[in-house]
């Protein structure tokens, strides 16, 4: 209860400062619209469906790309943890490509796939997969070897050992890797959408870029707020259950 109150007061104060800044008249309302103008835009965009549609397009791309990234990244990460050769080769590649900002994939994706959904997905997958690989392999390598030994004496070998022991044992790392992967996917998709206009879908990044082209600052800020809110909700919906699960089972702090 008290926590909710603190949160409300904090954000009310933030909006208050913003309101005071616009009311002072030092900045042009074209460059810094008052909170109410942004709220008006958001209300209108919500009602006429532009915001919902754009968010749906964006989230669809994000989810598909993210799932592909996880499906490739998890097994690859486990594989990297199994041998030194894999670590020296695929692991090094993953480390290198993870440091590459994923927006750098945009030119390549455009030339390969053209202005298509595939280009968008490609950028998201490239943004996700490497951090998932790295987190999973680190996780699998740092789990206490005693788990695997105990499992082997109880008759768990091969595939069963990997899926029932190594993977759950590295779950804390896997979840933090997936979380990181999500953040990277989100960023890379926004970058891609701002850079590339494609005809098959009009996402939040496009809406943002469109706002800039129209010099509609209320739209720019409104879309930015929407992106932040969606990011927050996704974090809560997708990862909080996992983190609670880990906390309950491992008895550790939030990882």
């Amino acid at each position, binding site marked *: 209860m008290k926590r909710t109150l603190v949160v409300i007061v904090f954000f009310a104060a933030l909006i208050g400062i913003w309101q005071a800044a616009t009311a002072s008249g030092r900045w042009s309302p074209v460059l810094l619209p008052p909170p109410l103008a942004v709220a008006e835009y958001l209300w209108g965009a919500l009602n006429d469906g532009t915001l919902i549609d754009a968010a749906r397009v964006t989230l669809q791309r994000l989810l598909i790309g993210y799932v592909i990234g996880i499906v490739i990244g998890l097994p690859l990460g486990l594989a990297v943890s199994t041998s030194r050769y894999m670590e020296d080769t695929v692991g090094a590649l993953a480390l290198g490509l993870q440091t590459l900002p994923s927006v750098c994939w945009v030119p390549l994706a455009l030339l390969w796939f053209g202005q298509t959904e595939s280009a968008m997905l490609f950028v998201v997958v490239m943004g996700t997969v490497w951090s998932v690989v790295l987190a999973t392999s680190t996780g699998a390598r740092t789990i*206490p070897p*005693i*788990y695997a*030994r*105990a*499992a*082997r*004496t*109880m*008759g*768990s070998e091969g595939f*069963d050992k990997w899926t*029932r*022991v190594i993977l*759950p*044992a590295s*779950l804390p790392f896997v979840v933090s890797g997936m979380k990181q992967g999500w953040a990277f996917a989100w960023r890379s998709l926004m970058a891609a959408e701002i850079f590339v206009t494609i005809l098959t879908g009009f996402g939040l990044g496009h809406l943002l870029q469109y706002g800039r082209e129209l010099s509609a600052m209320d739209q720019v800020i409104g879309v930015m707020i929407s992106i932040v809110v969606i990011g927050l909700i996704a974090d809560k919906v997708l990862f909080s259950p996992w983190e609670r699960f880990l906390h*309950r*089972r*491992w*008895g*550790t702090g939030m990882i």
Partner: protein
Amino acid sequence: MIASVSESSAASSGKLIVDGVSKWFRTPRASVQALDNMNLRVAEGEFVCLVGPSGCGKTTLLDIMAGLTKPDEGRVLADGELVQGPGRHRLVMFQESALFPWLTVFGNVMFGLKRKPGLSNAERREIAESHLRLVGLEKFKKSFVHELSGGMKQRVALARSLAPDPQVLLMDEPFGALDAITREQLYQDLQDICRERRKTVVFVTHNVREAVCLGDRVFILSPSPGRIREEFRISLPRPRDINSPELATIAQRITLALKAYLVSSQAAAE
């Protein structure tokens, strides 16, 4: 009450036979011999303790018996068959509890059972329940590992090792990290369980009293390289109390013998 025999002279048909096992550990700089020509015969239903200071290769020997590590020389036979890898007939209970934090207490006990063929799921659940009752933790079946105390964890580990009904139980200092009172309780539990079920147990420890309290035979090991030095047959009646004066007397004699070997192996090293 106490007989000292230089060579292992147990029954010729051993349940578990360690035959001339040697093991080296290779580091980039040197090759260190961990075990030197170890021979051991454990009869069915026997409780054998291996006692020695750290570095005498107790854990390595146990790993080799479990099939988790391969010996460089020699072999291990279980029921007359060569041990080539880990098998569910020889379960290991480790020093620290190797319980899986992602499973509940019940899930941990079920882990080995689920991998044992020829049982229905209802039977598995029944066996797991009965083993939790055996160690007195039936009320904690839904708890997670981190919610248990150290003693409770080792009890769950014991239940997990016993549940698939292994023929041989290999125990690697399972009570080392526990406080004295909890440990004494577990000595009683373990003795009761082993008497009821006629398990073959190899128990590794550095605590001589613990070994005398639990073992039918106690072997002392000396370090660098690990060698089996002497065998003591303990014929005290069971259940044994670790605080009894008779037990203390035997433990003292074994400790003295152990120290003598330590001094001689140090002298040999210099």
